[in-house]
């Protein structure tokens, strides 16, 4: 069955502000957990999780001939960054978009849907 990446993007400064509002955050986590539970029950779950802010990110450039180069921060400097994602199994794009709609409501932000390249072997 095809697999899709559902990415949540948002303004990190806004995220930080929201973090202060515990009531809002608790509610959002509860919504996301309810969504995750439904995904698992319907057998669509592959993986999912929220990410720490990009200030915690490190970019690595590896090479066979030299030491790897490490850079502090995200690969792309942008106001809006990836905040979390799911990998879900869905029979087609309509099913993936239906999940994304519910995911977007649960995490209160836009969700980008991208198909993975290969269909996994065991189907």
């Amino acid at each position, binding site marked *: 069955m095809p697999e899709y990446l559902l990415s949540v993007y948002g303004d990190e400064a806004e995220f930080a502000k929201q973090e202060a509002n515990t009531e809002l955050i608790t509610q959002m986590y509860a919504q996301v957990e309810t969504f995750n539970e439904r995904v698992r029950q319907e057998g669509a779950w592959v993986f999912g999780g929220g990410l720490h802010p990009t200030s915690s990110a490190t970019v690595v450039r590896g090479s066979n001939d030299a030491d790897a180069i490490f850079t502090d921060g995200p690969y792309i400097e942008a106001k809006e960054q990836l905040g979390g994602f799911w990998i879900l199994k869905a*029979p*087609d*794009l*309509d099913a*993936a978009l239906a999940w994304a709609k519910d995911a977007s409501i649960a995490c209160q932000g836009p969700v980008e849907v*991208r*198909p993975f390249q290969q*269909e996994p072997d065991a189907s």
Partner: protein
Amino acid sequence: MRCVPSNRSLTPVNAIERTFREDSGKAVATLIRLFGDVDVAEEAVQEAFVIASERWPVDGIPPVPAGWILTTAKRKAIDRLRRESSREDRHRQSALIQAADAPEEVGPVRDDQLRLLFTCCHPALAASARVALTLRLIAGLSTAQIARAFLVSEATMAQRLVRAKAKIRDAHIPYRIPRDAELPERTRSVLAVIYLVYNEGYLATGGDAVDREALRREAVRLARSIVDLMPDEAEASGLLALLLFSESRAPARIAKATDETAEKRWVRLPDQDRTLWDADQISEAQQLVRQCLSRNSPGPYQLQAAIAAVHSDAATADETDWAQIVQLYDHQYSLEPSPIIALNRAIAVAEIDGPRAALELIEALDLDGYYLWHTSRGDLLARLGQVADAAEAFRRAAELTDNPAEHELLTERIVLLAAQA
């Protein structure tokens, strides 16, 4: 194959052309269902037509030309997939097995086209891609034709099509009629694409006139087939009626070049010679509007068609039942409160309560970036004798439109006003 008497009047070349026009889209749709691959389907159908052009002149026209094309294309697709299956993935092999096992089809399946239409008009595709795909896969227009109609280069259009087809394949956009819960929204998207196709053929007189006429004809044909495929969808009938009313006026819309005007130019509705309107199209459209009314589930296309019907009832512009038109706009506005509908309503109000009342309504609308707002304002100001303000409004309108025919019309009005001042 034997030549049957009913086809005797047709030459093989005409038969191929007719079959291509009427059935190539259907054959592509059926092959996409069978093989799950747009490119395989398109190529196989093209190959089938190439073979037809060699064989039909020798063997005669087959009794069921569309069936012949479909069977031949299916065979070609299976050949190709067999050739490629050694290096391609198992996905194709399984498609091949499925298709080879499927019962032989007598003719294209109606639902296949509807399925493909929903795929082409999928909301995950950009609006421009939806229109292009629909014209390519459903209407069977060539990439070059679509490119000319949209005034972009063939390379740009080819790239747009390739990208859209790749997204259908990679993201697994399904080939199916949407579930009931999604159907109304998805049907709106299909109707919007058909309407866009028509408008593209209607709005500009620039580009190739023949290609533009082809777009309008295809839009009417698509609207007709969606009415046929979804007879319970009142908005589809409304759209078909709307397009037919618009088509009925086509002969009166463009004035022939005369001694004074070297170029063709647009004729506005009140100035059109109504004896040129196509009576057959009008009566078909009126029949559709009556059917819509009896269903009593009004929507934007049905209401626009109803307004067009009121215009078509008037033998001269002066006899137009403006009160009824205002009422229909009120109804439309209640369904879809947009300033553009309010603008159209105000133009109708001018015919009942006079230009000053209408001008007040128009000035209250926030449509400064819309050329027709300026055109309508200029119109009303001119009728109130405020010549300089009217000319200024027409100038603003001209700045905001790229349409050469509209431009021409506006420039002409500015010149006429200057003569009055």
